[in-house]
């Protein structure tokens, strides 16, 4: 396998019923740089032009842009456009990882024992967070898969497979406010929910797991062309394996991400990496339209015949 390149176009459009006089938004739409992921070009376009904008890096290392709008406006468009190159990741042999109990014990607290920096960093992802709970039912669900002595990554893979098998992908079943316990009871949800369930299971048995937000290349229905705006943001799970580092698993698709998952950022759960989060001053309500398009380099000129997007540099 060799490197692949993608063009990403992610539009977020708010329309307000009454003019908004003041707005402050935090944007996390800039893909991170990783060993297997390079950014060839990236730009964020905002309309109307903000009165002020600032780039910074959050506590999890994600690039953030904060913008202020102080002139009255009736819509806000945030367009992120990137060219990303993905390289093959090192081959993964799940059987070669240490027994899962050893991983758990390495992460567990013992008075006076020093924690290596990577373990300290990983321990940020061991506990409850706004959308992740530590509970007996999650632990029980995980332990049915994590049999004694099972290699850690084999266990994670089996858990992913179980969730994929037993949960139904159903965009109508949940919204952003549905608690993970509810998703677990009803066994339905979207990629974000399945990721939160899997993370809750892993953390409930003492393992470190984080939430990854990004995009997935989709395949158009047979015989149909690739359409602009037909894609969506995606989410999956990453687990910490001492010695190996972080390894990704996608419970929605029962796969280990390779050349079709583009990472934007990560955090303890969705709340840490929500792509656009803001506060506006103004009466009335708003409508939100999000449109995501992921196009492999080879199909770029076909999809963007009209030249709406920027070709690769």
């Amino acid at each position: 396998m060799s490197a692949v390149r993608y063009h990403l176009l992610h539009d977020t459009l708010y329309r307000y019923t009454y003019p908004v006089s003041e707005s402050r938004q935090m944007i996390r739409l800039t893909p991170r740089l990783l060993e297997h992921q390079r950014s060839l070009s990236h730009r964020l376009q905002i309309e109307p032009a903000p009165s002020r904008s600032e780039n910074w890096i959050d506590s999890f290392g994600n690039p953030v842009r904060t913008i202020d709008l102080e002139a009255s406006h009736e819509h806000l468009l945030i367009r992120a456009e990137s060219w990303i190159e993905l390289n093959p990741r090192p081959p993964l042999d799940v059987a070669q990882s240490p027994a899962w109990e050893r991983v758990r014990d390495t992460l567990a607290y013992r008075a006076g024992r020093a924690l290596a920096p990577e373990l300290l960093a990983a321990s940020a992802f061991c506990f409850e967070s706004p959308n992740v709970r530590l509970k007996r039912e999650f632990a029980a669900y995980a332990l049915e898969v994590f049999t004694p002595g099972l290699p850690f990554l084999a266990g994670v893979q089996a858990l992913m497979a179980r969730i994929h098998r037993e949960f139904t992908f159903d965009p109508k079943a949940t919204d952003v406010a549905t608690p993970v316990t509810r998703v677990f009871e009803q066994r339905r949800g979207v990629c974000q929910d399945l990721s939160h369930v899997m993370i809750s299971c892993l953390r409930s048995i003492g393992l470190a797991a984080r939430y990854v937000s990004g995009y997935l290349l989709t395949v158009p229905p047979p015989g149909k062309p690739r359409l602009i705006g037909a894609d969506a943001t995606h989410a999956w799970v990453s687990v910490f394996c001492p010695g190996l580092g972080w390894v990704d698993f996608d419970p929605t698709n029962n796969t280990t991400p390779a050349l079709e998952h583009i990472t934007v950022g990560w955090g303890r759960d969705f709340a840490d990496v929500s792509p656009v989060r803001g506060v506006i001053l103004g009466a009335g309500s708003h409508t939100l339209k999000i449109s995501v398009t992921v196009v492999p380099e080879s199909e770029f000129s076909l999809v963007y015949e009209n030249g709406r997007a920027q070709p690769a540099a």
Partner: protein
Amino acid sequence: MPTLLDTYAPPADRYDELLDAHGKPRAHWRPLVARLDGLGVDGLDARAQLVADSILSDGISYNVHAEGQEARHPWELDPLPLVIAPEEWHYLSEAVAQRAGVLNATLADLYGPQHLLAEGLLPPALAFGQPGYKWPCVGIRPPGGIFLNTYAVDLARGPDGKWWVIADHTRSPAGAGYSLQNRIILAKTFPDAFRQLQVHPLSGFFRTLLDGFARLAPSEGEPPLVVLLTPGPGDDSYFEHAFLARYLGYPLVEGRDLTVRDNTVYLKTLRGLRRVHGILRRLDDDLCDPLELRADSAVGVPGLLAAVRAGRVLVSNALGSGVLETGALFGFLPGIAERLTGEALSMPSVASWWCGEAAALDHVIAHLDDLVIKPAFSDMSLPAVFGHTLEGAEREDMIARLRAQPHAYVAQEWIRMAQAPTWGPAGLQARTVGLRLFACATPEGYAVMPGALGRVAASPHQEILSMPRGGVSKDVWVRAAGPVRRVSLLKRRLGVIDLVCGGSDVPSRVGDNLFWMGRYTERSEATARLLRATLSRLSTGEDDDESSLPDLLAACHHMDILAAAPDPAASADEREKEVLAAVCDPTQPGSLASMSRQLSYSAGQVRERMSSDNWHALNRMARLFDRPLLSVGQALAAVDRAMLDSISLAGFALDDMTRDEGWRFLILGRRIERLHRLAALIEVVLRFGDAARERSLEWLLEATNAIVTYRARYRRVPEVLPVIHLLVFDDSNPHAVIFQINELDTELDSVARDLGHPRTDALHAMREALHRFDLTRFEADDNRLACRALAEQLERIADDTSALSETLHKRYFTHTAPDARTH
């Protein structure tokens, strides 16, 4: 003769603050005991009454949550102080200052290098697993490296007389204001004893606090503006926020009074934006910034964290400091103190077991009777549970909960806390007592307030000390080793320089609410007049071809008073129902009832500016629509009442309210509303067909309150030209469009002048256009063209008035107009 002390018989299994092991008063209490004996039962009762009266007259209150009811409760202060000997105070203050230093260093480590976690001195679960650990605050170093600007700690004394820490308050410690208030009351209740015992004054501590903020706030040479940020009047200890703000001389603000521009915090005032350099917050960490912390917080300041990160503002205590408010930390604190400061803690924390460690969980379950179970996380609202009170199923349930989520619980040794005498109807009674001490950061370490909030159990056999659960407080008298000097930040008497005239720097929020109060008062009155005209025609059953009722209903709909356009096919009953809904259905926008609700809301936000009569009129009006009105007669009575109340509110505004900068906005609101509604209503009538227009002149004069003037002047049935002249062009008629334009113009002029903003000339154009209008056009036999031309002009006036309202809003309230300025 028996002394008071003979009646005091405390249980012997606890430490008694007053009596020693032989039942004799301890030395440092003796002068007070002698004084109390001198007063006798009657004297003490009289003092107790004095204390209760002071609390009532000062309005000192606290919200008590009992049996699901929320109620503002008078503060409870026991008339007997708790006395502390100088040498004991020396130990207490040193120990508390030391602990504050250790906790400050712990915060600096947790949000900085994290040595404690890396070296295994603190479980990561107690940092990263705590909801109080704020990830967006990682890496922020607050001004001067001080995270804990203020600190409070709860202490308990065991049977052997030893002190233990039972809780730390690191987020926004409450209670210092109440203890100051307690002191002010008791010092005047027992003035002689207070002097004789040489009690340490508290004011020096608050002076130190003020100096600390002034020194640390990043003010770049400007005189620092520090504000006290409160969640608002709904908060449990709002009284304390208001009291402290007044005592410290800080403006008391709510989140929406502040705005962040360019990573700098500003206070929105009617004069413009003023930079804020320091914020003493009484909000939980989570609520402070809806952008980066809890998104649903309506009381925070969006962008505050960015301003903190940029080093542009001091927030006390640093955001994220709530992470230390957990008993789970206690077991690790000795090691932490050793590592970070090289010292041993001089006062121990109560023995604690964090159940997240397997061995600790086993111990806790085995020794439940001797333990108190508490939540390990500061955001869990679980009351402390005494293990020995649990039996049967309750006990099983608790054990199951501990096993299910061990990391969420901490168990503490049950200390049989000390007791002290209290005075009540039953005379001298021993009750469980604990202390809350306060400290603040200084360049030389922590200063401890020489006094405390004494926390007394609500009844003789109760263990729990909690103000939200109805406990009682005590003043704590720390005796000085030598004579003391007294200064107070509250001046004994005001001098000429302190005299306050109509305040400047009125917060924009106040102006905003007054503006809307003015608009809603006017709108209620105008709506009531139109509904009265409608109802009186409904009630007479006048319903023939000559009736103007359909026109009135159409006008009501145009003015958004009636929900739907009148249906000519509707039965009389249906029509009546719709009109009644327009009077009394609060869920229908534009109804009189919903108007009066909105009026109450705006007025409630500025309640402190209204006289009690004024407030009473408002309340009466709000209650008019508590019950549905069933008949036209009832509705007419309610509408009349509402109209009178609106008129008396207008009177109060003129005669009763202080004419400061805020007041001007009340008047502006009234003028703008009247101009807008008048123009819109006349326009509606002018656009009617000929017959309907002629029929409508009569009610139009009624609805604009000009019928009497018209009759006096013309003594004949209304005709278009004289009515239009009276209602639009007559600059001596207060109900004429031109009159309102002129008044509004004068008012805007002085507001712009006083508040130093450029004025708008929107009104000038309106007036010019009216002046140019040729009234003789109405003399033509067919006046339809004239009517249409004037209707168009009035429509423009109504639109321009709305735009003017919007401009004022941006310029003075939200400060988002292009000329928003800072000073």
